[in-house]
């Protein structure tokens, strides 16, 4: 799993490349949450994620919950078909929202 973070001022971009599964959950949690320390807006690119399982989904949920609590604006710049399919199967098609304000978690 390759997680690239680029930041400028108070915004950052996180791009994930690889599987969001139990094998990478630990890494995903650490590297996706770390940039949230000092930014106001964050753009997430999930176009490189080709496999997702429940643990990947949980990391995504945690990420959304954290950004919501910290009032960070999240935008999903790109989402792969695999992730989109997984989310809609779980009844979560709208979880990534219109990419504006932190979409709440049920």
């Amino acid at each position: 799993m390759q997680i690239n973070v680029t930041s400028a001022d108070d915004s950052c971009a996180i791009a994930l490349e690889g599987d969001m599964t139990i094998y990478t959950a630990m890494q995903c949690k650490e590297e996706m949450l770390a940039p949230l320390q000092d930014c106001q807006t964050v753009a997430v690119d999930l176009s490189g994620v080709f496999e997702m399982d429940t643990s990947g989904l949980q990391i995504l949920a945690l990420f959304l919950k954290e950004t919501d609590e910290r009032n960070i604006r999240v935008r999903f710049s790109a989402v792969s078909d695999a992730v989109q399919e997984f989310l809609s199967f779980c009844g979560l098609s709208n979880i990534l929202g219109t990419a504006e304000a932190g979409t709440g978690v049920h």
Partner: protein
Amino acid sequence: MDMDDALQTFIAEGRELLEDMEAALLGIEHDPENPETVNAIFRAAHTIKGSAGLFGLDYLVSFTHVVESVLDQVRAGELAVSTDLVAVLLTSCDHLSDLLSWVSTGEENLNDDMQRKSASIEQRLSTYLSGSSVAADVVESSAQEADAAAAEENDVCAAQDAAVSDQDLWHLSLRFGHDVLRHGMDPVSFIRYLATLGTIHHIETLWDELPAADKMDPESCYTGFEISFISDESKETIENVFEFVREESSIRIFTPDSRREEYIRLIQELPEEDMKIGEILVRCGTLTRCELEAALSSQQQSDESLKPIGEYLLEEKAVQPEVMSAALNKQKSVKDARPPEASLIRVDAEKLDTLINLVGELIIAGAGTNMIAQRSGMPDLMEATETLSRLVEEVRDSALNLRMVQIGATFNRFQRVVRDVSQELGKDIVLKISGGETELDKTVVEKIADPLTHLVRNAMDHGIEAADIREAKGKPAQGNLKLNAYHDAGSIVIEVSDDGGGLSKEKILSKAIDRGLISDGSGMADKEIFNLIFEAGFSTADQISNLSGRGVGMDVVRRNIEALRGTVELDSEPGKGTTVKIRLPLTLAIIDGFLVGVGNSGYVIPLDMVVECVEYGAWKESGSNSSCLNLRGEVLPYIRLGDYFDEASSGQRRERESVVVVRYGEHKVGLVVDRLMGEFQTVIKPLGRMFSRISGISGFTILGSGEVVLILDVPGLVQEAESYFSEHEKRAISA
């Protein structure tokens, strides 16, 4: 690869397992305490059952199941090993073998005969079964009854309550255990599978349990689902979707006709807020808003009236197989003791034969190349062909080695024969096996089993005395039978020996004279007398017994062995026992040959039988007309191959003749030839039926030059020279 191939593998595998099983069953009587032996037997039944199920061979599964149940009790120490039990298990083993044969017929069901047999053996086996092993079935069926009862009650309720919702929706409330992800179980995967059993109407993913970031372990599961689902599948099928996680998770499944109270209970039990769950149920379409309100307002109902609902909440823990039999927990792993299969591959025997044939051709072609190289006189070429022939030789050896199998497996089969026969005869006989690791060609092994069986039965029937007679003679009451094998001078020797009464020379002689086999026994060596029993139509037993007195005599044994280019001889000591020695060639396909010239033809003598070559003239008894040479003081009968095969003489031959001294077993004979032409690798090609009766010849081969030469049947020639010699000597004496 398709199912048919797999089925063939299964049959072959099954046969091997049955052999192991039989061997272990025979061993268990001597060593009933050894858990490994019991395990080996159990494993065989178990593995066959396991694979048979895959092929849908129900008759095999149900039969092995009963066998396995009995063995399971033995393994658990609940059932003692008795002779009777072993007998039933051996019968089962035989029947399993029959069932495997039935599998290969491809018939789906057993015929009446086989069915009856299965049933009768199952009946016998089941007398050994105590309550505990059927406990599993009982538990299962009582669980089913409970299920049925529950379903019945459900129907009543459904009638009272009418449909909860206008759609026939199942509702699943899933909260997965924290560790499921760590164990490789992905909750969404189960739900995806669920989706193949019907249609997911609505799904909600819940993360109420998701902790704050610093407390959240990414490898723990915090996810729950509420699902409404449309399906025609049975409750059991839907429950089973979650079979792998239900122990550690909370899986609640509501049938489409579940009562409102059940949902109230659900709302109360779930960790999330009541209202929230209620809303989810409404969103799922499981409850209508109106029903939800009614439900929430009736929450005050007493717990008592809710009690039966607990039964509807299909938490599976009730029917755990743990109940089945705590006693069975003593089981130990058995497979570890299995001979390593990993390093073995199964090869079609035909492929091996093809390979050996090709190697044979290679040898012939190689010999041809060698000859040309020699003729050309080019040193480089000669060196190259030298290397080549060394390699070919190695290829030949390893190719032949592929066909070599240990004789142990064949020997071990006799444990069963000895056991059965000694019971039949009421004698106490124990079989001792040695040299089981001795290897010989697979085709030889296959063909030796029959003659060996005959010899073994014969030894038990006629050789070893009844216990009382033995004791009267001061021998131990238990009779000993020995099977032994070893390599000797390019052949394998198999010995069957007993410590019985030995053969009576007088009886043999009188019977032989009676039958007109000989006219008079005088001057015959003991060994010759004993070996008379291999003559056609000979039986020395006073009583014709059920076993070996069926008219199949020892002559058949001899014929079978001779067909393998082997010999058989017998030695006996009165009161001490009898030993039958079978000598067989290691392989039937290729030999190292020694080429000799007689007249204008070439003949091949198997090299491992050649002792030495000497000059005829130097050892000829000058002037005497004897059929013997005096080789360094040793009397050596000889045969002139030229005369024997009527080869046209080439005039001056007598000056340059040589003697090839050959040995077979304990006999040495000289073969007088015209020319010695050196060693050759030779592929034995069998003679056609037309020529099979020509004495002195065992086959033919093709030389590298394309020339066809005959291979001498040394055992046959040795025998002939010997008998000619003794006749001659006798005549000389009586004259």
